[in-house]
């Protein structure tokens, strides 16, 4: 594997950290390099610090590591926050003329590159471009051809006019020349470029794109980190495909609007995070009993309550499985990678319509705000299939009428799936309700009909279990004694951890599970392994509990709930430690 390079820009909120980082990530992606980005928020001391980190290689990268090679530090605190990741060969770029940076000390053997960012930016046309000067300096340090940065600047500022693009290019060159002239130094870095073509996107964007691809036409939501990006992505885009986005007054409204649109026959969705899921849970039973297809995206963040809103956690699993009074059939899908966020969204819409029930699509903060490069054909639109399930029109509605001539949207069938008629379909008028109902949707408390309807709704789940493919994703050594199971976004870090363990002579088999309910039966896999470890970002081991419940055996657990995603090297060490403990016991 080619050496990877880790870069970051950090400062205070308001320093333009995100957009600076994004420009550099885009430049790398356009240079044919793989990129994996992450965002760092205050972890020590007080709030205010934020950083955008980029890991890049000519090979695929799919996690973050504890290492930083080049850091653009706009504040002294940026250095403090990253001391553990910086090493002897690290280079720190800073502006010694900035008041707060005048007395900054560059630790140990690291190289400090003092560049008058603001002054050079002013000479190029405005102080606002000081971060771009720093990017130019970084290009020099990392021997990265500046034309790639030009290309990213063009993309970023194209709609603001050529003048601004040119000024930015000049600012970048000023940074580059300054370092070249003032620092007669050979750095250890040399970022090659390739001819590969990549796209760069985060999990929320992948979900939004998946929704449009799947024919979603209606989205209602209420802003909440880290799900807001789904809504902002769709806004202005879904309209080009005949859809619409509404910002509702709260999540109670958002999910009911989405439900209304779905009753109208649209593919419809909403997205939110923990506190919003609590409110939306009110409507879950109604979606299920009215047999309405709906996709509810939960981009998890740290809870409970407001918790740590900008931090990682996979703590809502039980809420998604069991939330709501009564017994509510539902599916829970949990894409394990950013590209899978796209495909699982498409699948979620198909499953929702084929089985006419609510489908949770869950991602989490680390996946939502993380960007990763992919080959564009990863998202092959020709491969998108739309299956609307059992929909009847005027021509075939006749076969689904009651003796008294009423359409039967809750007809008792062998597979549990009943016909759906969209408003406007002649003779299809019917009632949908949260009350228990008969086949026509009319309220009933008839004991037999009650049982028949409950069984029918559950039959859909059984049918889906049989008809659909709920397999986990598998990698590592298929014959290894050690089986590691995970769900959701830990897959990337785990894949790299497995390589590290392999280098150390430890074979591991990994099952990464994208389906929480229905989920694959892992009994044979667990029984065949000597050691089983379940990895997840929560304290209680909610998925581990499910595995134990399914398999009737104990598993070891690796849990993390400090708000930070797993890193590959850390995960490798944790797995080793868990196995060692097991061996001692």
């Amino acid at each position: 594997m080619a050496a990877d390079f880790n870069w970051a820009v950090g400062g205070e909120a308001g320093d333009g950290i995100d957009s600076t980082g994004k420009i550099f990530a885009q430049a790398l992606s356009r240079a044919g390099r793989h990129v994996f980005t992450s965002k760092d928020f205050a972890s020590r001391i007080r709030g205010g610090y934020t950083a955008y980190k980029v890991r890049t290689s000519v090979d695929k990268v799919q996690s973050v590591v504890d290492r930083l090679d080049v850091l653009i530090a706009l504040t002294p605190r940026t250095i403090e926050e990253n001391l553990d990741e910086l090493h002897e060969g690290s280079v720190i770029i800073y502006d010694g003329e900035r008041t707060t940076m005048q007395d900054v000390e560059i630790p140990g053997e690291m190289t400090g590159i003092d560049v008058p960012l603001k002054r050079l930016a002013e000479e190029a046309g405005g102080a606002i471009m000081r971060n771009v000067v720093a990017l130019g300096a970084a290009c020099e340090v990392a021997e990265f051809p500046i034309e790639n940065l030009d290309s990213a600047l063009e993309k970023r500022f194209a709609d603001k006019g050529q003048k601004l693009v040119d000024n930015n290019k000049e600012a970048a060159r000023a940074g580059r020349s300054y370092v070249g002239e003032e620092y007669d130094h050979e750095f250890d870095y040399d970022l090659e470029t390739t001819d590969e073509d990549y796209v760069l996107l985060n999990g929320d964007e992948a979900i939004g794109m998946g929704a449009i691809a799947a024919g979603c036409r209606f989205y209602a939501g209420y802003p909440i980190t880290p799900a807001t990006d789904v809504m902002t992505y769709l806004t202005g885009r879904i309209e080009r495909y005949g859809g619409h986005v509404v910002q509702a007054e709260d999540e109670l409204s958002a999910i009911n609007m989405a439900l209304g649109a779905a009753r109208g026959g649209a593919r419809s969705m909403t997205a939110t995070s923990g506190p919003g899921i609590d409110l939306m849970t009110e409507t879950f039973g109604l979606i299920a009993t009215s047999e309405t297809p709906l996709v509810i995206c939960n981009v998890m963040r740290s809870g409970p309550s407001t918790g740590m809103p900008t931090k990682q956690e996979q703590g809502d699993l039980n809420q998604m499985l069991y939330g709501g009074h009564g017994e509510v059939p539902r599916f829970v899908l949990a894409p394990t990678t950013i590209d899978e966020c796209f495909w699982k969204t498409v699948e979620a819409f198909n499953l929702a319509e084929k089985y006419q029930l609510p489908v949770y699509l869950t991602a989490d903060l680390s996946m939502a705000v993380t960007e990763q490069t992919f080959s564009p054909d990863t998202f092959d639109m020709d491969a998108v299939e739309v299956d609307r399930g059992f929909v009847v029109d005027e021509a075939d509605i006749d076969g689904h009428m009651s003796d008294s001539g009423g359409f039967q949207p809750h007809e008792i069938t062998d597979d549990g799936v009943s016909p759906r008629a969209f408003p406007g379909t002649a003779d299809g008028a019917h009632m949908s309700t949260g009350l228990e109902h008969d086949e026509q949707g009319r309220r009933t408390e008839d004991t037999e009909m009650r049982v028949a309807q409950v069984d029918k709704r559950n039959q859909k789940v059984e049918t889906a279990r049989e008809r659909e493919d709920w397999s986990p994703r598998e990698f590592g050594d298929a014959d290894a004694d050690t089986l590691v199971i995970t769900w959701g976004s830990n897959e990337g870090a785990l894949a790299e951890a497995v390589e590290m363990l392999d280098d150390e002579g430890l074979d591991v088999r990994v099952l990464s599970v994208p389906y929480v309910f229905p989920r694959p039966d892992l009994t044979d896999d667990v029984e065949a392994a000597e050691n089983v470890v379940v990895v997840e970002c929560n304290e209680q081991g909610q998925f581990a509990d499910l595995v134990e419940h399914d398999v009737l055996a104990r598993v070891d657990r690796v849990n993390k709930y400090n708000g930070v995603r797993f890193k590959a090297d850390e995960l490798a060490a944790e797995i080793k430690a868990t196995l060692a403990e097991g061996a001692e016991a």
Partner: protein
Amino acid sequence: MSSDIRFTDFKSDKQPTWCPGCGDFGTMNGMMKALAETGNDPDNTFVVAGIGCSGKIGTYMHSYALHGVHGRALPVGTGVKMARPDIEVMVAGGDGDGYSIGAGHFVHAVRRNVDMTYVVMDNRIYGLTKGQASPTSREDFETSTTPDGPKQPPVNPHALALASGATFIAQSFSSDALRHQEIIQKAVEHDGFGFVNVYSPCVTFNDVDTYDYFRDSLVDLKETDHDPTDRGDAKDVILDSEKEHQGVIYQNEESVPYHEQHGVDEDMSVIPDGAPEGATDLVREFY
């Protein structure tokens, strides 16, 4: 759709279980007649009902319908109409459903001005839960949960609507059948959010806001020099605490409904069986 629709086509085969004499019978009849009269038929109509005695209307009427969660009828109606601009949407529920648990949605539905009709069957009581104070109950109205009366002023829904930028505000009385139907019909025909508060007496739990009370105290705005297109006039009527009124209180004739403001005019139920044309552009944007 056929033009020979009669209002009875909007009746379902379920017999209403409302108490004999309940105002909701008259309210529903007027709604069905207004729908038939405006050229709608059950297959192109969507009724969203709240939860309450009033909410049972979804069961007694025949149309596409959803009887949902207490207080959330307006968001559902909003979603239906956005997805299906071709469908006539009517939302109906009680005073508790609309002005208590659903009050937040009311304000925003009014602001959004989606082209649908909202009928609140206002009996100034919680009927279904057997007689507790509602947001429109009088300050001194004694109920099982307010033995000395709520001691809070009732919500003024018309004022709430006006303050939220309503384009159509009306009041009707379920037992004045012709006027009630006529007013609902105006709301249906209105280009935007047609809001009608209907006095729909509860004969079982409210012995104050009775048929006699409304019959005696209602002033019909049609018989006054009230100008419904004048916001100032509307404000005066709405803030007049001495009298009860019926009629169209306010109508903005320049109302531009949501779907026109936002260009939402497609039937969203129709989609291709693969990704929409041009979807690959979305991938290229990430280059």
